[in-house]
């Protein structure tokens, strides 16, 4: 199961910008709210997080040491 970006639905204003910039089709708009489809195509480019003006999308990185 691939981890996917997180959505804070309270912050999401339904502008849909993240859906437009997502190159792998992981994000869709359902009833003016963002829905995320799990896909291995998501390469964590974080463009969705970068364009979100309300901070509703988060792409956290797990930090570890070898």
């Amino acid at each position: 199961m691939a981890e996917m970006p997180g959505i804070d639905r309270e912050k999401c204003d339904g502008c849909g910008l993240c859906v437009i910039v997502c190159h792998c089709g992981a994000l869709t708009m359902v009833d003016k709210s963002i829905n995320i489809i799990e896909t291995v195509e998501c390469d964590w480019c974080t463009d969705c997080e970068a364009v979100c003006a309300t901070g509703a999308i988060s792409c956290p990185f797990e930090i570890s040491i070898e």
Partner: protein
Amino acid sequence: MTVQLDFLKNVLYFSGLDLAEIESIDKLVFEKSAERGEMVLLEGESATDLYFVASGAVKVFKTSAEGKEQILSIVRPGESFNDVSIFDGGPNPASARAMGPVLLYGIKKNDIEAILRNHPRVVLNVINVLASRVRHLVSLVEDLSFKHVIGRVAKILFEQVGGGQMGRGPRLTQQEMAAMAGTAREVVGRSLKALEEEGAIKVDRNRIVITDKEALKRVMEVSS
């Protein structure tokens, strides 16, 4: 009211204008579409049009001789880009690429000049837009010049794993790292790329793995 007219009414450039004025400007606007990844502007080339993003998003960035990218801004619906070369007549100071399918509304340089002459209110609005742009860029210059952000990002990563005592630390977004380093998200993205090139870390999808603790510490020391 057309979609375009409705859009123009809400653009900062044309704020405070009445409907008749917006309608006269509307006649000068043309549409331009771009696909994901398409370059809308190339740094160094001459440009003749001012653009407003109607839908989608555009990344404005500079590229170094080594091919490194520094994002200057992400232009969202309602915002403009290429203002600088329109008003100073010089070449594009940066490149612009569509982050997805994008619809732009453009106005030719000559038409912009006519709009400024005929609608003094727009002059004040443009000053406002350009002043905000300068403020953003000054802040970015400060981050890139004086703050040694790469060292601070290295320190944040190092501290997240307890200086090597913990195998795994909490999860952080680039926005959170930016807030912790007192910088912009754009600068964190570039710092992570630089640390990866140094061989200190490896970014694997949503994982940042510290592959060379000593290299990371060296960056922290050099940049402090």
